[in-house]
């Protein structure tokens, strides 16, 4: 848990221009996250924690300051480069699972791999990954609508991991799950963190935040 930071936020400011007034969602945030960290970001609604996660997730660019992912500045990247970074270096896990409804569980996991390598994946690898998150082959042929919330989140975790990213970004990963399933999911995330994945998780549940090594609280766009 040392060395160069995988993620660096350097004086990041994000301003949303609204018709009535400009909203400062992030106000000069500076933050280093090192390889193998497990960080929980907490804060009340509207505090800017989702905006922070979007900056780290390369879905958005800062108004001022810079975000470095593995030392590369996202300000200088074009849309395709940012997209490829999301595909290869980052794994997203959402509160609402966000699986692609048209694809089966197996295909949802396979999809980022196809995006990256432009060819069909080795089924063994996909099934192995699904086994690791607790989805057997019989479940893998179903579309997300036929799976329970916990199963969907497991598939989503497998999808996030398929391109072997350095960083997992989790946005309220247990928010739509019952506490028992939520605990299982968190234990699974912990085990991936132990295997070396850097995890950044947004939550407002202190019990969930307790799984992280470190908790950062955001208030009014600033790290408190």
């Amino acid at each position: 848990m040392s060395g160069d930071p995988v993620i660096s936020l350097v004086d990041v400011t994000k301003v949303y221009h609204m018709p009535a007034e400009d909203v400062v969602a992030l106000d000069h945030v500076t933050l280093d996250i090192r390889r193998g960290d497990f960080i929980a970001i907490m804060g009340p609604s509207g505090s800017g924690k989702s905006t922070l996660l979007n900056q780290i997730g390369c879905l958005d660019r800062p108004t001022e300051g810079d975000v470095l992912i593995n030392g590369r500045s996202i300000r200088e990247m074009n849309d395709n480069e940012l997209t490829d970074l999301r595909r290869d270096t980052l794994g997203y896990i959402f509160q609402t699972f966000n699986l692609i409804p048209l694809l089966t569980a197996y295909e949802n996991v396979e999809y980022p791999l196809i995006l990256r390598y432009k060819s069909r994946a080795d089924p063994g690898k996909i099934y192995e990954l699904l086994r690791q998150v607790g989805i057997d082959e019989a479940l893998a042929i179903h579309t997300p609508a036929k799976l329970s919330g916990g199963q969907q989140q497991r598939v989503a975790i497998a999808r996030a991991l398929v391109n072997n990213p350095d960083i997992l970004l989790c946005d309220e990963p247990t928010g739509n799950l019952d506490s028992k399933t939520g605990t299982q999911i968190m234990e699974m995330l912990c085990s991936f963190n132990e295997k070396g994945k850097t995890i950044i998780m947004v939550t407002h549940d202190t019990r969930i935040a307790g799984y992280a090594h470190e908790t950062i609280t955001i208030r009014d766009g600033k790290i408190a």
Partner: protein
Amino acid sequence: MIGMDIFTSLAFRSVRLHLLRSLLAALGIVIGVIAITTLGIMGANLTLSVSAQLSRGANVVTVTPYTGGGRGFMVGPGGGGGEANTNLNITQSQLQDIEQVAGSNTVIPIYATSDQITVGPSVGRATIYGLPPDKVSDLLTVSEGTPLRGGEGALVGATLSSDFDLTIGSRIKLGSTANNATAKMVRVSGILEQQGASFSINADRAIIVTDKYYTAAYGGSGDYTQVQIIVNDLSQIGNVINNTDKRLNRNEKIPAVRISSPSQFLSTVTSTLGSITSFMTMLGAISLIVAAVSIFNVMIMSVSERVREIGILRSIGTRRSEIRKMFLYEAFIIGFIGAGIGALLSVFSGYLIVLAIVGNTTYFFTPASLIFVPQGMFIGVATCVLSGIYPAWRASDLDPIEALRAE
């Protein structure tokens, strides 16, 4: 399983998920493609069959004596009893001039008159043509019997032969003389094929005899009623007309001969048919525009319903161009299915409408007619893909964060 390209597969699944909506949009394309293809095929068949009917004799240039008045377009002895009132003919020296100008093209000097004919008890009138026997086959086709050889042998037109019940060997008396001993008699040696409308000589109600027999019977050797030049290469018709005009009508205030050819008329008819066909195809294209609007609508709906999905795809690393591809594929699939079915059906509908309106399917399976099937299909698919461009662009341009927030 995800086959082929993942974006094709996603596009296919989207079409399948909204099957009814997609099929209704495709139906618009089916109808549009049928409309333009069928009308195109009909136009092509109409033009082909009309110009085939008209172009029999289109390569003929007719030279007639100038009589001062307009005798109408269809120059020819069948036009009435005009010949009896004029002494003007094409002379032997004019014929030689024409032959020189015509070069390798066939020149046929023609004698013609109208006379009373008697077959058994029936009496009527017919045009009598005197032609050099070796050139008859350049103008006319014998359907039954033998070609013109000489002597009293004669060819009769199809209509005349059926009106007078003529068969091979029938004898026809020419002229009004009652004295059978001195009467001119001919014997039917062959019956001509039905000719229909023609710019050459009108042989359906005519009797064709050799030039020798004709001049023996009616006199006037070397004074031809008309001369026809059969031009081997249609594109040379203009030259032949001009050269003949220069040669025969030089130094004359009053022209010596009239020179006419149906080729200009033919091109006018063909181009008019072409305009009518284009106009009708444009009417058909309106249905394709309506179809395009419906595809556009379906694609916009597909994009708005899948905003969130687009957000997911973008956030996990799908490029803008790949999102665009996905929606363009969807439009292409709808277009391909619609246009494919439309093209298939338009072969049937085209055949039926050609049968009903043109009444002649001889030209249906020719490339000039069937080219409208792939062409219609291509236009159908292109219409769909063009209608999909804006929706696809809109989908790819969505902000992933906003899109993820959508319900």
